[in-house]
Every structure is written in C-alpha cells, then in structure tokens.
C-alpha cells in the first residue's frame, strides 16, 4: 500500500523520526544519477481496482468504497467516459477545421477525471485547470459551454458558484492557492468535521505534473497544511508537461511530496475509473471530516498533444503511446461489463448512438456560438464603473458608428 498516512508529529510505524545527519543514510544513487540515466517512473505503488485486462483487483482498503457500484453505476461511468471522449474528439476536429482557435485534449485521462468528478458531492467545490472537460461533465456543465473559451467568444460561460466548478485556470498552478482559500473559507464557516449527517464540504483542486514545479503549488501545499484546509489536491500526472517529461519536474514520485508537507499522499491508477472514484471518495471524506488536506496522484497518460498547437512526435516515441494504449481507461471497463456483468452489445451501441448525437449537437452549438459585440471588451472590468474606462468605451463605440470606421471596414 502506497499511502503515507502519517501526519506531522505522528510518524507511521516503522518510519520513525529522521536520524541525525551523521547517521543519515547515503543518498539514493538512482536519484543522484544524471537525469537522462534515471529509470523512468513506472507507476509503482498505485491503487488499482480494475486492471487493464478488465479484471477486478481485490483491495482491502479501497474495495469497499465502491461496493455500491453495481452494473448500472459502472455502466454509467463507462457512458460518462465514452461521451466525454467523444466530446474531446469532436472538439479536436472542430479545431482542425478552424472552428476553435485551440483545444486541450483530455484523451487518455477520462477515468482520472470521471472517477474524481463522480466522487464530488454537489455541495463540494472544484477548481479545474484547463483540461478538465470530464470533471466539467460530472458537474453538470453542458460540453457546449466549454467551447467559447477555445473559440474566443468568452472566457468560460458557466457560473462558477452555481455549478461549484470554477472557471478554467490557464496560468499554471494559480488555482491551487485559490482552492486553498476557498477551502479555508469552508472551514471558517464550520462546514468541516460536523459528522456524517451534516452538510460538510470539501474542495478538490485539479492540476498536472508540470504544475507541481510552480511556486503557487508549493505555497498551496504549505497553506493547506497549516490551516487544515479541506482540500483534495488532485494531480493528474499525464507524464508530459508539453515536451517536458515528469523526470524534468521531480526526483521522487509526486504523491510522496505530500509527506514532506505533513499530509497523506496516495497514488492511484489514473486509467482505472473505479480506483479513481474510490480514492477520491476516501480523500473527500477525509477532508469533510477535518483530516484534510490530501494529495492524490492519478498516474495516467496524455494520449494526444498538449494542445492542438503542439506536435508530440518531436519529443516522445510512439512506442510509449503503444504501451499506454493497452491501459486504455474505457476498454477495461467495457471488457469487465461484458465478462463480469453480462452487459450486452446493445448497451454499447446505445452509448455510441448517444455519443454521435452529442457530437452533432456540440458541432452545431459551436457554429452557433454568438460572437460578442465590441462592447464586451469594456463590460465587467469593474463592479463599480470607472469613469475613464466609460469614456474610452463611449469614444470607441462612437468611432465605430462613424463614417471613418465604416470606410475602414469596407476596405
């Protein structure tokens, strides 16, 4: 088991206090080798409940946490992942056809996102980065609402407070501190540690392996630990931060960093939706009951490019992709549903048809997205109007209405 359950001041059995420097063990040779010679992190120590072959893996600690997931529920998780994947593929196509300026694909990360997203209660809060289309789906945000940011018609069209899903955050790691602040607020309002019947809340913060190098993520870990913030740090380690492999960010497996901050870190198979669901449920409950924060490293793989502007063939080998194809998050659930739950082909055909319809709706909605008028440039900069900005707006709109502007537009 890979869980570091020891908290500051309470070392786990067998770990003990750190030895004095003179007695400290020699540095790990593997860690001092030049970076290129280090063996890649193979994901050792992860929690897995459904292996790539579609077989249930017994787990004394986390198995019970998904005991309620019956055939219908597991089929529902499959449907979530299949629909989200289809949204992702359609959006990628829309970008290729010039209808979106950019898209950040989630291909390969469906289980990591749906497992976490379905563990969240409605009252919990989520802070995404910019790739969390699967979490957005689980928060009830229509996929068409995600397109405006990438088509350039808005900066995120959903209501972050009503959906309890913050706007996408593009500046890497910023949202981790914002999530901690929000979680501190949950704690200050007494919404933590009230017991099972209460309406206790938690916050989940999504970020990637690259973000773990950012100062904001370090500060977020420090603050969350100091204020016992009910926040689950959910790191999707998809192995690549654009062209930089995880070895460029860290010497140790990322989940082990939590130990140094004094809270539990756990690694889960990010391509196993059941394990992601179970571990997320556990972590959220820890936070709601006052034992936060928790770090989850969902060990997964970015099967597509960083964004549609990226060319991964310049920095990674196709062999790697082939290995991860065998760990596909959807296929293992499909196999398990067929073999162990007797689900027939008609179910998968139904999901396929639903995905087709969703993709068609997404495409139509994309093309129909209204382009805002030039007045949008000036709206909502401030709550209380700024007279110089009002004057700038009026002058520009008057200019647009003038013949000077019309002549220009006609040229």
């Amino acid at each position, binding site marked *: 088991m890979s869980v570091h359950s020891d908290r500051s001041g309470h070392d786990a059995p067998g770990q003990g206090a750190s030895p004095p420097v003179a007695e400290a063990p020699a540095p790990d040779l593997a860690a001092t080798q030049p970076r290129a010679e280090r063996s890649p992190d193979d994901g050792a120590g992860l929690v897995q409940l459904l292996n790539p072959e579609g077989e249930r893996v017994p787990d004394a600690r986390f198995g019970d946490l998904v005991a309620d997931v019956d055939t219908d529920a597991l089929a529902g998780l499959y449907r979530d992942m299949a629909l989200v994947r289809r949204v992702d593929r359609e959006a990628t196509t829309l970008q290729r056809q010039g209808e979106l300026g950019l898209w950040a694909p989630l291909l390969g990360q469906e289980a990591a996102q749906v497992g976490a997203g379905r563990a969240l209660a409605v009252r919990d809060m989520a802070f995404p980065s910019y790739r969390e289309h699967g979490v957005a789906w689980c928060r009830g945000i229509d996929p068409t609402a995600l397109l405006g940011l990438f088509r350039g018609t*808005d*900066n*995120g*069209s959903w*209501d*972050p*407070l009503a959906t309890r899903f*913050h*706007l996408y*955050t593009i*500046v890497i790691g*910023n949202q*981790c*501190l*914002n*999530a*901690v*602040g*929000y*979680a*501190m*607020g*949950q704690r*200050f*309002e007494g919404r933590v540690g009230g017991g099972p019947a209460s309406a206790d809340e938690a916050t989940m913060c999504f970020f990637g392996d690259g973000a773990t190098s950012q*100062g*904001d993520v370090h*500060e*977020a870990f*420090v*603050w969350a630990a*100091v204020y016992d913030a009910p926040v689950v740090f959910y790191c999707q380690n998809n192995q690549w931060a654009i062209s930089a492999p995880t070895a460029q960010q860290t010497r140790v497996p990322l989940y082990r960093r939590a130990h140094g901050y004094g809270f539990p870190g756990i690694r889960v198979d990010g391509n196993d939706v059941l394990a992601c669901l179970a571990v997320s449920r556990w972590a959220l409950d820890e936070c709601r009951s006052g034992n936060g924060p928790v770090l989850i490293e969902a060990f997964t793989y970015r099967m597509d490019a960083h964004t549609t502007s990226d060319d991964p063939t310049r920095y990674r080998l196709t062999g790697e992709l082939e290995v991860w194809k065998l760990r596909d998050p959807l296929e293992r659930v499909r196999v398990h549903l067929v073999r162990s739950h007797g689900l027939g082909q008609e179910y998968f055909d139904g999901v396929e048809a639903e995905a087709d319809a969703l993709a068609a709706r997404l495409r139509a909605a994309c093309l129909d997205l209204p382009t805002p008028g030039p007045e949008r440039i000036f*709206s*909502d*900069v*401030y*709550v*209380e109007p*700024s*007279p*110089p*900005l009002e004057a700038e707006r009026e002058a520009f709109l008057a200019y647009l209405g003038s013949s000077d502007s019309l002549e220009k537009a006609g040229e």
Partner: protein
Amino acid sequence: MAVVTMTKALNDALRAALEHDPKVLILGEDIGRLGGVFRVTDGLQKDFGEKRVLDTPLAESGIVGAAVGLAMRGFRPVCEIQFDGFVYPAFDQISSQLAKLHYRSQGRLRMPVVVRVPFGGGIGAVEHHSESPESLFAHVPGLKVVACASPSDAHWMLRQAIACDDPVMFFEPKRRYWEKGEVAADPEPLFASRVARTGSTATLACYGPMVKTCLDAAAAAEPDGHDLEVIDLRTLSPLDLGPVFESVRRTGRLVVVSEAPSEVSVAAEVAARVQEECFHSLEAPVLRVTGFNTPYPPSRVEDYFLPDLDRVLDAVDRAMAW
C-alpha cells in the same frame, strides 16, 4: 474626531471593518501577535481571534491567492504585504486572478479584496523596503489603486476600500505613518482627487508621501510670490483628473510629483492626459519631479533620490520661466 497617527487611523479603520462585517478577514505576515511590523494591526487578533486576523505563512502569492478563494466563498479579505519590495511574488495572483476574475466570469464573481502595501522611502531602510511600485498596478486593468496621504484619508479610504466590491491596491506612505492628523467626521469619496491647497500661479499634482512635500513647498514659495495649488490625486486607478484639468486651465502650469521613477509612470499618465485635455491652457510643458529611473538607492543617498522641497520649487521656477 481625535488627532491620531496614520497607523492608529488605519488600525481604527480595520477594527471598524471587522466589527461591521463578519465576512471581513485580515491576512498577513506577523500581523497577529506582533501587530504587524508597523503595528497597523495591533491588538486586532487578540480581540477578533485567529480566524478573523490570520498570521499567515511567509508567502505573498499565498496571501493573495488564498484571498481570491476566500472572496469566492463570500469573504472580504484585507491582505497586508509587509513591504513594497515584497509584493512582487504576489503580482501573478494579483494580475492574473484578482484583477481579471470579474471580467472573465462576466460579472458572476466579485473580488472584494484589499491589498495594503506600505510604500515609499525616506526611512533609512535596507534595500527592497523603500520602493514605489504603484504604477505597475495602475497599469493592470481590473484593479483599483489608491494612495492615502493623511491620517484622515488613511482611515476613511481604507474603510471605503474594504466596502468596495472591486479589488483595491491600497498604498500607505510608510514615512508618514507616525505623523499625526485629525480624522474627519465624514469621508470624502474614495475614487476622487482633492484640492489640498488652493492657489493661482501653478499647480502641483501629487499623492501619498509627496502631498506633504508639496504642501511644504507651497508654503515655502509663498514669500517669493508663488501661490501654488496642490492637488492630492488620492486615486491612481481610475485617475480622477477633473480637478487637475480645472486647476491647470486656471494656472496654465503643472508639475507632477511622485517618488516613483518617472518613465511609464502614473506621473507620465497625468502629464499625457493633461496635454490632451488642457493643450490650449498650458503656458509651459508639464514637468515631472520624481525619483530617478534607477533601482532605489542605498539609504545614505536616498535624500538625493527623493523629490524634496527644493527640487519641486526648481521645477516650478522652470515652469514659470518658460
């Protein structure tokens, strides 16, 4: 009302805000037990508890980043940055999140956050403790930026900034912290400049620590027959230049005074706007008296760096002789 130091006026304002609104929180380094390095928060943690007055980890991005999340949750955080030169780690959270979330969310999220920054030199401090970074923030759309110059303004402007639903960068002239003044019974508007001294021969526009310098200069110039008008800008973003335009149309001459380097600064913006609006009224080019375009110098030579009475009056003479 009472005659108090600026630090006491600020302390009273924070106390009033904490009493008035249970959602007001104060966050900063060493602000609890110690009461802040300038004692602005003295006694507040004792009276309002550790959940209202938070001694934070030593992390400025954390202070503002957490404040953003707290504001999303409905709190009204008041952040203290210990010194001007330590605000830069928070610049990312301030400019990327705090300033933009209302805009990005199409008005769904409000960021009623105040970031207090003691600024400016003149106290013989070591490096990074005497800077004037206000122009950097005035350049960021979505922020409001104000600077107080007197105990009365310190008190009322801080209370108004806390009540404001937009993020406010609140610059406090640290070398004036210990000077006393009477706190007015009623506030003036927050985002408005103010004529601090009426005059007719030339106009001085200034803010923060330079207001006293300019008032002193105006008093010293009187025997020479100069009747200088002094305008305390108070709000740097949005600028309220109406009173400046009105004044320059009467005097025909303007000198803008600030401690910050002159290039691409608030003072530069004031000069640009005045030539746009008052071109035909100007009898001389708009002049600036500022700190130099260098890093803040070692404190033994800071008196040369900081605009003083003589440099202000030299500029007035040049404007008059044009």
